[in-house]
């Protein structure tokens, strides 16, 4: 039996070597790089398999690195003529990659800019420059309001909030305190360190009638009445309505996972880890609208781009590969395997996807989402965290706090755009 197994294995190996040698004669091999994340690698393996089946003369070799090393490796490899032909990068890094001449624009015949703009959700327009797109996503992420169904039932709440006012009323019913007034369960989590800084920038400021940035995100514009209203609303959750505490249970998502928070704003990437949390029954709904019924959302995404290393037949193969990974089929696979949202309405807004109880609220959010063009996301997040800390710990007034934050962020943007 063992002998037979060995023999058939050898036969199989010989056959595959022969097949490999046969196709290798006129095959093009291109390299694809992404950072390591289990589900993303699994999804990409499936995409590569499908792509190779459809294009027998092209093979795609995927390499992945830990997130921490990713940028350094890419930066070292491409100028040396090594490394990827198609590379994955965070949308916020596009400027840096363009300036360092690591990537080239997508060809207009395969990716006509107007057609792409019509096909993709609007925030992908951040990747366009004139008549060219520089990079395109397979999948995108957005925000929504998670809620704990058990706590909702316990408090006798039938449906999740539709507006900000309803959200506060529901949060009040969900908040619990001990005898000394220390919160032991919060109505809604709060923490600029998590996703709340996106909620503030792109959602609350707009809902209060403002425009967070001007000049293509080069000018800070939230130092306005709308900005003050937005930050007063946000800190008011803790200070006036007392339905939350900053730093409650260390991290917002930890409080929600532990069943100590009624509601929690987070991204679609959280779905997987919430599904793995035992004993947590959760639902999700769109971010609450303002009194006028206006809704906004924030979207971020990873994109794929063709590097400057790809030339000749490798370039042609890279273009074909880019076309495949931005196709409807690839997006559906990515949604099923990774749980990230399709970047095109044609896939996202199909009946089954848009009405999916889990993905639906996120996908519907994409239609009214904006994408912040960050110069340094963690630096800009830090500025908003400090703003809330100054109000919360040092008792600074909202108007002063937002003025200081706007000035600091403007300086960060000016420094960045002066040197890039």
């Amino acid at each position, binding site marked *: 039996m063992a002998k037979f197994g060995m023999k058939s294995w050898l036969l199989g190996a010989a056959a595959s070597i022969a097949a490999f040698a046969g196709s290798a004669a006129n095959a093009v091999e291109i390299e694809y790089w992404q950072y390591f994340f289990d589900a993303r690698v699994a999804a990409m393996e499936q995409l590569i398999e499908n792509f190779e089946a459809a294009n027998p003369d092209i093979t795609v070799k995927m390499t992945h690195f830990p997130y*921490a090393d990713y*940028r*350094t490796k*890419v*930066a070292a490899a491409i100028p040396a003529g090594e490394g990827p032909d198609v590379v994955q990068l965070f949308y916020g890094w596009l400027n*840096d*990659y363009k*300036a*360092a*001449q*690591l990537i080239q624009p997508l060809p207009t015949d395969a990716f006509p800019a107007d057609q792409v703009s019509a096909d993709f959700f609007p925030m992908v327009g951040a990747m366009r420059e004139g008549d060219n797109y520089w990079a395109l996503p397979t999948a995108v992420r957005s925000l929504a309001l998670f809620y704990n169904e058990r706590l909702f039932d316990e408090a006798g709440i039938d449906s999740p909030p539709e507006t900000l006012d309803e959200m506060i009323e529901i949060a009040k019913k969900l908040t619990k305190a*001990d005898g*000394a007034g*220390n*919160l*032991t369960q919060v109505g809604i989590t709060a*923490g600029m*360190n998590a996703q709340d800084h996106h909620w503030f920038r792109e959602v609350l400021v707009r809902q209060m009638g403002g425009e967070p940035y001007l000049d293509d995100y080069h000018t800070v514009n939230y130092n306005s009445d709308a900005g003050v209203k937005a930050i007063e609303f946000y800190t008011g959750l803790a200070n006036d309505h007392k339905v939350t*505490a*900053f*730093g*409650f*249970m*260390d*991290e917002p998502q930890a409080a929600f996972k532990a069943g*100590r928070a009624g509601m929690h704003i987070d991204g679609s990437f959280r779905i997987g880890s919430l599904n793995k949390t035992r004993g947590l029954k959760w639902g999700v709904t769109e971010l609450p609208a303002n009194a006028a019924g206006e809704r906004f959302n924030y979207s971020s995404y990873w994109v794929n781009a063709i590097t400057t290393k790809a030339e000749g037949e490798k370039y042609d193969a890279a273009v074909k590969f880019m076309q495949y990974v931005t196709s409807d089929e690839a997006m559906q696979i990515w949604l099923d395997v990774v749980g990230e949202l399709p970047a095109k309405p044609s896939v996202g807004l199909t009946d089954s996807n848009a009405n999916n109880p889990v993905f639906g609220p996120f996908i519907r959010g994409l239609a009214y989402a904006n994408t912040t063009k960050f110069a*340094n996301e*963690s*630096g800009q997040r*830090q500025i908003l*965290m*400090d703003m809330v*800390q*100054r109000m919360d*710990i*040092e008792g600074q007034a909202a108007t002063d706090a937002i003025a200081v934050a706007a000035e600091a962020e403007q300086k960060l943007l000016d420094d960045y755009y002066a*040197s*890039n």
Partner: protein
Amino acid sequence: MYRNLTIRQKQIVWAWAFLAIPVLFYVVIRFYPTGNAMLISLQNWNLLGDRTWAGLDNYAKLMQDEVFWKVFKNTFVYLLIGTPVSLVISFIIAYHLDRVRFMHGFIRMLYFLPFMTSAVAMAWVWRGFYQPVPVGLFNNYLAAAGIPQIEFLRSTTNALPSILAPAVWAGLGFQIIIFMAGLRAIPRSYYEAARIDGVPWWTVLFEITIPLLKPTIVFIVVFSSIGFLRIFDHVFNMTSNDPGGPLNSTKPLVLMIYDTAFNAFDMGYASAQTVVLFLILLIVSLIQLRILRDR
């Protein structure tokens, strides 16, 4: 040619042959990156593009950066509280532990255990202790006793000492072992002579024990100073939601360097900060060696 050398010359050749390996290692692993960092501090570089010449711009920016001066101060607060406190506590413990015979090895092991524990794991456990109710151990006790909660980490005044406490505790074991070795090395005959003369214990302590421990104290002071000036793991892991916060009140220089290099990708500016840290370490160590050396 080798044959014609004298035995002494042959010994020198062999000595260099063996020394070449560590020398080469140090040049490649230490001196080259150090020199490179100094060079990058005079340039602008975002890791991706070309390096461009910046002259002393990065240093000028540093002098005007409020955050840098805040961080500079924090770094010295870590040093000026951490080193004396850990020195005194570890000496007191070692002094008494030296006299304990009962379960001596076991007690010594208990003190040494935190030193062998991963700083990251320890920082996260302490971070849990410091949380407000309902999860924080300390605040749960306070709340149960009817005492108002203390904001350990979400406070601009309490956060730094709260982070320093486990860092001091973690280093104690090592310092205690060194102190005990130093205490054992003091000849018994001095103590016997003192006892015959009927000298009180504090005179023995201040006239015999401490003066003879001077080399040990110099070693521990220099060693722990360098440690506190380079503090990173405890701060980063206990404040990873808001690294070095709140409002930069706990941020040490190393954390600022990390943030500048790997979040802002401003390698030139980060290198300038690194060069400053290097100079601080050099100056502090030289001063300590000078003050504490034998007359």
